């Protein structure tokens, strides 16, 4: 069944999980249902990736309707990787979430939390798996609407403001996206991405295409928090429940980046742009700005969640930079960093969640010496931090290595220097955290704390461990990312 219906199963399982979780209403049962659905979806995603590695492309027609009329789900080396990543993070987040959610959300709302988390997973997987431009919009809205609820469930009242802020921005983004899709539909008469590409050469005036590109790229850029459209992200990450932050930080922006890659390589081509300014040049400038400005902003945060959120904006900059380099090494680096950043940021936010679970705060100046009382959690945060810097031996180094290689190959040696220079800012913000948690005497609040419970530690240790593992043996992720880059570069002649 997986072999035939895999592409749709991967989305349907979490959708049903969400439905059942909402109906059962009992916290523990809702959690169990969600976990089972996520594991099922993960198994299907892995099977799909294996199939894609063997066969190239897996295409699925919803209800048996041919693409012109019906919706096509299409999995290749690019989104196969994304599906596995997102479902894997979902499973680990759910394992982690049970204890964390119990302490942060009132019991009557816990089932809703899981329902929304599964709905968000459904939306993200749908965005990744579908080959239909309008269907992307539908799933984009599903993931965004459920994300607003997830953020609003945060224990702090400011979570409501953060959710509202994201609601406004997200709606604008979705609207921009759908306007762009409308323009594409007017020009080509189809919503299937494959068919759109086939018909593009027939378009007489490129103006509609350029307008469509502008709307779609801005719409997606809002969702992926591309600098300077990132303002919603720090608040959203900071005030959402810890488990929701873990999930969103590791997956939501990543899927949006995938979409961006799909559109600029698969549909528009990197050289299309307004006048002589190609989309790639715009992306390089914005990515570099993100890497420096957001990293610098991270240095001055006192709330660890906000610090890591600004770091996320910066790290997304590395990913979009890799895409904009538009060569094999650069795109490989981008997709490696999609995976690696998901792992290390997941570990980091899990560690912060565990610290909140025990100490009730994530203010840096109240966490002196917490490394002594919560050594495993602090060690996971440290490994994730080293990964963010890109210290060799962690996976962050491998992705940056490919990015620098890509910059050299593209002839942009100055970009290569800026990539490594911006890593030094990461030394500052990671170093600040390390100084406080390891090199200070434990304060009153931190002295009596115990280590986080095992079921929160286990997924955190898995992610931190993979950050090291993929730093020492990157053959597997590098080959998957390389295959994705190959597909994207060959997507449009």
């Amino acid at each position, binding site marked *: 069944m997986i072999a035939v219906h895999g592409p749709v199963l991967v989305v349907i399982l979490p959708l049903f999980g969400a439905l059942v979780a909402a109906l059962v209403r009992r916290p523990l049962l809702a959690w169990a249902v969600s976990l089972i659905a996520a594991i099922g979806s993960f198994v299907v995603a892995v099977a799909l990736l294996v199939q894609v590695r063997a066969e190239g492309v897996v295409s699925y027609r919803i209800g048996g309707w041919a693409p012109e009329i019906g919706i096509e789900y299409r999995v290749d080396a690019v989104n196969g990787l994304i599906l596995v990543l997102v479902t894997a993070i979902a499973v680990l987040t759910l394992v982690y979430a049970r204890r964390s959610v119990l302490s942060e959300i009132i019991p009557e709302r816990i089932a809703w939390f899981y329902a929304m988390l599964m709905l968000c997973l459904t939306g993200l997987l749908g965005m990744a798996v579908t080959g239909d431009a309008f269907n992307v919009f539908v799933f984009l809205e599903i993931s965004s609407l459920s994300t607003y609820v997830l953020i609003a469930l945060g224990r702090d009242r400011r979570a409501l403001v953060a959710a509202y802020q994201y609601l406004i921005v997200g709606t604008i983004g979705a609207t921009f996206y759908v306007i762009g899709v409308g323009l594409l539909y007017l020009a080509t008469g189809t919503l299937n991405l494959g068919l759109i590409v086939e018909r593009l050469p027939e378009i007489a005036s490129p103006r509609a295409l350029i307008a469509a590109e502008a709307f779609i790229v801005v719409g997606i850029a809002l969702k992926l928090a591309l600098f300077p459209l990132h303002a919603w992200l720090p608040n959203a990450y900071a005030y959402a429940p810890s488990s929701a932050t873990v999930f969103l930080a590791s997956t939501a922006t990543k899927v949006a980046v995938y979409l961006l890659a799909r559109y600029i390589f698969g549909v528009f081509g990197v050289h299309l742009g307004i006048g002589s300014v190609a989309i790639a040049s715009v992306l390089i400038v914005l990515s570099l700005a993100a890497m420096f400005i957001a990293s610098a902003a991270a240095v001055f945060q006192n709330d660890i969640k906000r610090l890591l959120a600004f770091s996320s904006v910066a790290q997304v900059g590395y990913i979009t930079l890799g895409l904009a380099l538009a060569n094999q090494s650069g795109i490989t680096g981008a997709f490696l960093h999609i995976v690696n950043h998901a792992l290390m940021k997941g570990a980091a936010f899990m560690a912060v969640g565990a610290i909140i679970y025990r100490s009730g705060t994530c203010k840096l100046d109240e966490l002196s010496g917490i490394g002594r009382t919560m050594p495993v959690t602090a060690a996971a945060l440290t490994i994730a931090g*080293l990964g963010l*810097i*890109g*210290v*060799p*031996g962690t996976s962050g180094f*491998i992705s940056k*290595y*490919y990015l*620098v*290689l890509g910059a*050299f*190959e593209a002839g942009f*040696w100055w970009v*290569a*220097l800026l990539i*490594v*220079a911006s*890593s*030094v800012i990461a*030394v*500052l913000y990671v*170093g600040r955290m390390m*100084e406080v948690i*390891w*090199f*200070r*005497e434990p304060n009153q609040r931190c002295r009596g704390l115990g280590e986080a419970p095992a079921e929160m530690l286990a997924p955190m240790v898995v992610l931190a461990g993979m950050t090291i593992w993929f*730093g*020492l*043996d*990157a*053959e597997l992720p*590098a080959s998957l990312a390389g295959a994705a880059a190959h597909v994207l570069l060959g997507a449009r002649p």
Partner: protein
Amino acid sequence: MSMGLGDSVWLALALIIPAVTLLAILLLGRRPNLREAATLSGAILLFITVAQLLVDVLAGARPELHLASVAPGLTLALRIDPLGMLFGVVAATLWVANSVYSIGYMRGNDEPRQTMFYACFAIAIFSTMGLAFAGNLFTLFVFYEILSLSTYPLVTHKQNPAAMKAGRVYLITLIGASMILLLPAIIWTGLVAGTLDFKAGGILDGKLGPVALSILLAMFVFGAAKAAVMPLHRWLPAAMVAPTPVSALLHAVAVVKAGVFTILKVVVSIFGIETLSKTGSADWLVYVAGFTIIAASVVALRADDLKRRLAYSTIGQLSYIVMAAALVSPLAVLGAALHIAAHAISKITLFFAAGSIYTAEHVTKVSQMNGIGRRMPWTMAAFAIGALSMIGLPPTAGFLGKWFMLGAASSAANWFAVGVIVVSTVLNAAYFLPILTAAYLKPANGPVKEAPLAMVVALSATALGTVMLFFFPEVPFRLASAILGG
């Protein structure tokens, strides 16, 4: 003794022993005596392992070990060549002395957080071994960064604001320079040469023009900021806030030597001295290193804080090695390699003595050292030997390296380099001899009071070693002569 498989096992042990030592230290954290036993036995076992490797390398073996294929083009692999062996032997030998000394110092001064201290030491020696025996630039870079990170908690050990500030300078300078300059230099090298493996004679011949070679060399020299070539030298005096055994580790054994070792290794096995002397791409470095030597000596002359004076002395001595590497002749490489060994053992003696004086008398300033030679006879005798060696007087180890470097400079008719060596020798004498005259000729103001036994034993041993190395330089000499053969 050379066996194909046996070599690799010994080589693996050189990394495994410090790793196991680290685990033992962490597990025995609550039982200080056992914990210190773990440190000591780790040091001794590592020394035996490295000695075994030394025998094999002198017999002509070049042990290799493949650790991991990280990604296409990036492999973690070890291969011992004579230069790496020399650094490895120096580090492993002095780690034994440093371990004995550390135990005396940490207990004598009742320092807090000793488990973290010994654990970081074990990681530092682990990365030093990996760095010395690295088979390619990537492996070297990995261990270089681990070394920076593992010594950061040692620099900030006191955890007061001054220590934290020094730690920040230390970390940002070393990591920053290595990321901004060293890493791009390595990636550039890989793109141009198609490999990152060290090879006798270099891998860049004919691949880059003279100007590009100069730029690449500059990226390596300043990227390896551990070598403290000006203007990237400020971290070194700043790091003096650390406990003295740390200073000894940083300034004699691991950190600074890792810097000059990297530069020498890159000159010999990446650029190749033939390529560099043909293109003249290293000529500029003679002047930069020469300036560093003189400027650091002048600062040392004016420093009243004993450790600060030693720190600036280190900056000057390191640049001897860099300047010799920049002279790119076989004789200069010989001198540079010998000076790595000679400076290591002499400077560790000086720091041991400084720490001993601090532990016994709480004296940190040169101006407070009047008559101390009579009150701490063993310590000051060792200090005197170390100081003579730094000046370069026989019969001490420091004479050897300087002799060959001077020979290399004059046979290359590089009168700037000759002048620098001569002037700096005078300056070295000018800042070390007043300490000795004050210590011995001014009247003492108290009874004989030596530091704890473990410290006195350690510093006497390294002082003896400083003299022995002059009379029996065969091992470093044979290794240093074999460097260009790879």
